């Protein structure tokens, strides 16, 4: 576990902020105005009815305008902190505040096969291997499916993904499903593993990632999932995908306002469905499509940090995004973009930070890239800690005792404390000859060998046979 917490020792450990509270308030008020004045289009009758009954103004069948008071009320019932458990029922994450946890992304169409270096379509076995690698890495705290398997029946691929995740890691899972029925099946599988509906609600180890068309236009599946999960009291993220310049203004503030108006719509609905239902907000905003290529840049410097500040201002748990790259290869760009984005999220205190290891703007994944990100996170875990300054660490008596000509290498004080310093596992610090004698390998090559080693040695804790069978029955059910 990365154990990263921004501002952990108030003003004595690293911390960053991009928006002042007054700026956050302006964005919040903008969202409220959009909801009251412009409204949202909801493509699900239940959702429209629930909002109408609670006091929203509905025109043209599904154009819903939501009074500010309804939003304000939702804030009074939604939990501000969310505990997530592992598959065994241990509480492993407290999602909220400034604590950061890191995990992969989901559903990459392609993989750069570390054995051949070739980019190819992903298959189910890639997810098995990806989960095995994630299960073994210290700083991958939760998983998403990583890849979209091309070799299973496409209409049920989300069930296959869920099964492989459940079978190959005990870490918390964030699942994505295409249709609503896939979501219900994923919940069924999680309930079987947890040992029942109530156990899963009390100790949730899985959360659903819900993607919504745009800020002001909410698709039927997203709304159905939201209402279903809220009723069950199970955690989910609600992520409208407003794209600056296309489905929202190109300006960061404008895109954020449109996107979070959509998020707040989801929040209101969830609390109307069940007061106290957990709700996870997106921690990025101000998305754009690149105005040259129409690609959505994941490692964009301008879409990050301000939304983390904004969600801290709103006081809710957030789902964030880092460790990703636009690069087509596990190369210098991939390493730099991964490092900068992870660094940003650690400093600003993003909570559930996903997409670690993404390449090609979310279209390609790589296991060595995840291993490299794990090393970056190890570095960040050390960097984010505050410094202890006291008699023992200043060691003035020792300094006087050793004197100007002495040395500290074999001093008991050195022995006592040297392991408090950070030592890399994957990054190389050897001298030239040492590096050469170990094969003179690049970071990419070492990361790739590390993947092979993990796959050869790491055996994730399997599900009990009867549980695995019951899960599989749902996957293949007609």
């Amino acid at each position, binding site marked *: 576990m990365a154990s990263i917490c921004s501002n952990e020792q108030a003003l004595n450990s690293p911390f960053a902020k991009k928006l002042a509270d007054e700026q956050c308030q302006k964005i919040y008020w903008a969202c409220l105005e959009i909801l009251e004045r412009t409204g949202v289009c909801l493509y699900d009758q239940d959702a429209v009815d629930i909002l109408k009954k609670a006091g929203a103004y509905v025109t043209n069948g599904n154009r819903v305008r939501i009074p500010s008071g309804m939003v304000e009320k939702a804030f009074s019932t939604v939990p501000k902190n969310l505990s997530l458990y592992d598959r065994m029922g241990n509480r492993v994450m407290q999602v909220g505040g400034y604590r950061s946890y890191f995990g992969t992304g989901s559903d990459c169409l392609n993989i750069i096969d570390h054995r051949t270096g070739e980019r190819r379509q992903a298959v189910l076995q890639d997810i098995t291997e990806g989960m095995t690698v994630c299960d073994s890495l210290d700083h991958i705290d939760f998983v998403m499916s990583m890849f979209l398997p091309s070799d299973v029946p496409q209409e049920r691929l989300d069930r296959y993904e869920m099964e492989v995740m459940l079978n190959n890691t005990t870490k918390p899972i964030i699942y994505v499903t295409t249709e609503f029925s896939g979501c219900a099946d994923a919940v069924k599988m999680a309930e079987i593993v947890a040992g029942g509906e109530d156990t899963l609600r009390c100790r949730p180890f899985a959360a659903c990632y819900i993607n919504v068309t745009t800020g002001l236009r909410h698709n039927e599946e997203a709304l159905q999932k939201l209402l279903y999960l809220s009723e069950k009291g199970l955690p989910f993220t609600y992520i409208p995908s407003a794209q600056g310049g296309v489905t929202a203004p190109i300006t960061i503030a404008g895109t954020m306002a449109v996107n979070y108006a959509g998020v707040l719509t989801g929040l209101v609905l969830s609390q109307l469905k069940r007061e106290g239902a957990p709700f996870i907000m997106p921690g990025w905003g101000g998305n754009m499509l690149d105005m040259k290529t129409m690609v959505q840049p994941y490692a964009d410097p301008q879409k990050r940090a301000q939304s983390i500040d904004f969600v801290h201002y709103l006081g809710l748990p957030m789902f964030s995004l880092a460790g990703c790259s636009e690069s087509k290869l596990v190369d210098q760009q991939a390493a730099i973009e991964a490092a900068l984005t992870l660094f940003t999220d650690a400093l600003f205190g993003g909570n559930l930070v996903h997409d670690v290891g993404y390449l090609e703007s979310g279209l390609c994944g790589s296991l060595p890239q995840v291993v490299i990100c794990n090393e970056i996170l190890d570095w960040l875990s050390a960097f984010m800690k505050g410094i202890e300054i006291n008699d023992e660490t200043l060691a003035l008596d020792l300094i006087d005792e050793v004197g100007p000509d002495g*040395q500290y290498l074999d001093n008991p004080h050195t022995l006592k404390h*040297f392991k408090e310093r950070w030592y890399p596992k994957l990054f190389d610090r050897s001298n030239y000859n040492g590096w050469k004698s170990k094969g003179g390998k690049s970071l990419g090559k070492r990361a790739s060998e590390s993947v092979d080693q993990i796959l050869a040695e790491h055996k994730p804790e399997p599900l009990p046979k009867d549980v695995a069978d019951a899960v599989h029955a749902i996957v293949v059910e007609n």
Partner: protein
Amino acid sequence: MLDITNIISAVLKGDEPEVKLLVLEAISTGEKAGDIMNKGLIAGMDEVGKKMEAEDMFIPEVLMSARAMNSGAQILKPHLTEEDSGGIGVLVIGTVQGDQHDIGKNLVKMLMEGAGFEVVDLGTDVDPHKFVSAVRDNNATILAMSALLTTTMPMMADVISALNSEGLRDRVKVLVGGAPVTEEFSDEIGADGYGPDAGSAVRIAKTLISGEV
């Protein structure tokens, strides 16, 4: 029979009290001091050396092991026969003239002691003639020189010519090291070995003396 593995693992752990205890036990059960030394303590430090070179051990831990080994060796000393009391050889070490850097030199010194060498440390900024007399007076097997600067590196060649003109060059193996020193430079000045880091310096020193036998 001497349970060598216990001594080896106590040395590896750097557990000084444990090493002392095991050496005393071995002596009292009538084990040969030479065997305790070679198959236990020195074998333990061989393992440490390998781990250090493989970057599986931290330097402070290596030094703990070396210290534990030395304590064991002190207890053994009165019991060693004439034949095996000389350890594995005398090593003269120093940083060359004009150079004050001694972190690397000190580390090599401590590790050489841990490996069983009797070490004569001449310190830093050592005059070539001082090296030569130390080699002669101590009947040294190895002369180890360190330099951290490209400007002081050439002093190593001066020391080797001084050894030549005193007729001592054939009696001693010359080992060189320090950040700017390379294998090529070592060959060029006619040294016998070059250690790119402290761990390999010990390994090379041992190879140099075993090659002599």
